[in-house]
């Protein structure tokens, strides 16, 4: 069973992945308006989920948190939840 934290992380990763995949596509198809729209949609959703995750579980970058929170929360290669 996935924890709430892992579920939210998976949702965030899925949206980030969709946005990233579209971003790579746009490197070679920069004028594809439909892909630009889809990229905007997934990026916006990823941003919302990231803010929600960071509020509950601590910062994901040093731009969104520092010090105690940044250092003490588990590191991504540690599987413990």
């Amino acid at each position, binding site marked *: 069973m996935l924890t709430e934290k892992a579920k939210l992380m998976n949702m965030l*990763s899925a949206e980030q992945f969709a946005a*990233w995949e579209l971003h*790579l596509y746009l490197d*070679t198809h920069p004028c594809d308006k439909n892909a630009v729209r889809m990229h905007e949609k997934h990026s916006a959703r990823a941003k919302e989920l990231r803010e929600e995750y960071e509020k509950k579980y601590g910062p994901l970058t040093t*731009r969104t948190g520092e010090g105690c929170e940044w250092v003490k929360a588990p590191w*991504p*290669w540690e*599987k413990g939840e």
Partner: protein
Amino acid sequence: MWIYEKKLQYPVKIKNPNPAYAKIIMDQYGGPDGELGASLRYLSQRYSMPCNELKGLLTDIGTEELAHFEMIGAMIYQLTRNLSCEEIRKQGFDAYFVTHTTGVYAAASSGTPWTASYIQTKGDVLADLHEDLAAEQKARVTYDNILRLIDDPDILDPIKFLREREIVHYQRFGEGLRIATDTLDSKNYYLYNPSFDKPVK
């Protein structure tokens, strides 16, 4: 510059340690067709690319490869937790252990340390992009071989994700090659070396 995001691109949660599997997967950490070489190859080749699409593509794929390097590192780390000396000996991890304990080191499965001679920057868009296309296929084959040797679903899931990324990157590099040949002199692609000569008008 780069910003670190404190998460993996795709989850890695391996329940059962297995140093023999760690050694197999290590090939994609520091082996000839691994993620470290992929990242440094693309991030170095990008400077001499003749058009912006290709500079973007190499920067972005080179960046994603670093995230894959981290996923493989996480897999090696999780597969070598809480081992007994007996398990290390029995599963053929002793030669690695004596040099690195259970630290994660960039070497091939055979133990050969990572070397920059695995990669090239030729400073020529056609030569470099063809190397990149080949590199993605070689990495895909390595993942195919890993999938043949391992039967733990906790490992197979992220390995399958990484294998698919090789195929997507190959597709994007193919499009990049098309953009390059459209940009170069269509009568003779080989007329000049874009990192050195001025284009012939």
